[in-house]
């Protein structure tokens, strides 16, 4: 994106700053208008296949004596929770990469934001499926189980993170602010974990740890769970690729606007 202003007499002396608004943005690459590509396409296909297989396997699981049909949630719930952890980890990693001066690039900021958005969805799904799963065991929709509580706190932390990202600011300021918040959120997760597990030591009822291990769960359950993990990971990756590309297209559109804005700004000087 350099000055292509042959049609106007503006913007002739100063080169328009390429990618100034998004430090390090690779805006010089040819602009693609779609968010799809070979990577997104193959990820999408794999995700759909894995998801279909998970559903198929999950629905064929036998109903257990204790939980009835609810036990089939093992195909969904652990995978969703796993994807939410991946999302949080990717957000933290991308934020750290943005903060590190040598690797600073708008790409990492976009990745962090995109991953957090998807992570919030997966965390909310974790809470929902966990609550549904717990219902027959606990008799109520919600108990103050350590893991559920931790997931709820994580959801609140990342909703705050996303709210902060939506606050209008210059791209650089927003990226910095968001990156610090994301790292803080990750630093808080272990503290929250200890606080919540100690808090519930005596009360910790049937958490996932007691539900899934292999003593009374046969191989089909473990296979369904692992397949679920794979499927949700693929879904996460697929969504991430698309979301990051959407964010990049947005940034590029705004950079293109910048060139126009500078030309417009200079035109103000012309006598009216």
């Amino acid at each position, binding site marked *: 994106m350099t000055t292509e202003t042959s049609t106007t007499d503006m913007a002739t002396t100063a080169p328009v700053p390429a990618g100034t608004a998004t430090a390090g943005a690779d805006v010089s690459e040819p602009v693609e208008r779609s968010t799809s590509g070979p990577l997104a396409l193959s990820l999408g296909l794999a995700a759909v296949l894995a998801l279909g297989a998970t559903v198929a396997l999950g629905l064929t699981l036998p109903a257990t004596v204790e939980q009835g049909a609810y036990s089939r949630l093992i195909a969904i719930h652990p995978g969703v929770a796993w994807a939410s952890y991946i999302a949080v980890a990717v957000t933290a990693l991308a934020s750290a990469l943005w903060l590190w001066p040598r690797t600073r690039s708008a790409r990492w900021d976009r990745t962090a934001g995109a991953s957090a958005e998807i992570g919030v969805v997966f965390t909310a799904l974790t809470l929902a499926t966990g609550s549904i799963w717990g219902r027959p065991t606990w008799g109520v929709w919600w108990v103050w189980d350590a893991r559920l509580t931790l997931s709820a*706190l994580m959801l*609140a932390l990342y909703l705050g993170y996303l709210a902060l990202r939506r606050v209008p600011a210059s791209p650089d300021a927003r990226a910095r602010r968001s990156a*610090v918040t994301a790292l803080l959120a990750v630093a*808080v997760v272990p503290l929250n974990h200890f606080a919540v597990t100690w808090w519930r030591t005596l009360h910790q009822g049937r958490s996932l740890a007691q539900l899934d291990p292999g003593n009374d769960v046969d191989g089909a359950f473990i296979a369904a769970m692992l397949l679920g993990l794979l499927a949700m990971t693929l879904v996460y990756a697929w969504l991430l690729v698309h979301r990051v590309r959407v964010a990049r297209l947005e940034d590029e559109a705004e950079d293109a606007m910048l060139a126009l804005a500078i030309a417009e700004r200079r035109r103000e000087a012309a006598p009216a």
Partner: protein
Amino acid sequence: MWRDALLVAGKDLRIEARSRVATNQVAPFAVLVLVLFAFALDPDRGLLTRAAAGLFWVAVLFSALLAVQRAQTVESGEGTGDALRLSGLDPAGIFLGKAGAVVVQLFALELLLGAGVVVLYGVDPAGYAALGATAVAATLGLAAAGTLYGALATGSRGRETLLPLLLLPAVAPVLIAATRASEAALGIGGLDVAPGDWLALLGVFAVVYVAFGVVAFGPLMEEE
């Protein structure tokens, strides 16, 4: 850094002493919260006494939100942000100073609320040393986290609602740990976990946030 911290803390405390917002608004609010809890929980069945530690720390948490917001409002005057950046003050010093001023105010509030819990909820004070240690560790963490999130939410429209959303989930461990440690000191409630562990958790929390603040406050002040 420490000289700047003292200068900023002294300035903030002087402003609070002059404006009396802390004494005229935050302190009455905190006591009011204690009274409201009594309305919400039947005072006759001993619920208040048993829940006193938790209610105390929830009241502290809400007051801390107000104190942090107040500390940010002080700097929101026209040109003040620019002047702070131009001042040559070390950003880490500014962070420590502002957090320090919040710590001092929260200590005063905790004394007041402690008296309120004793008088209104019928709590028998005990374990002063343990309570003191809990209060110090928890307050440092709250003030540091509050100041840091306050700076993160600063300069944005709608920060009044953003700050609680950012701060409250982050300080959940402080609420849990401080409540359990206080209960242990007062001899109420079960001792599932050794009180020392809760204190350690509070200490780690405070260290993490102070360290983050010292490092991150400078870049965050740059925001435009």
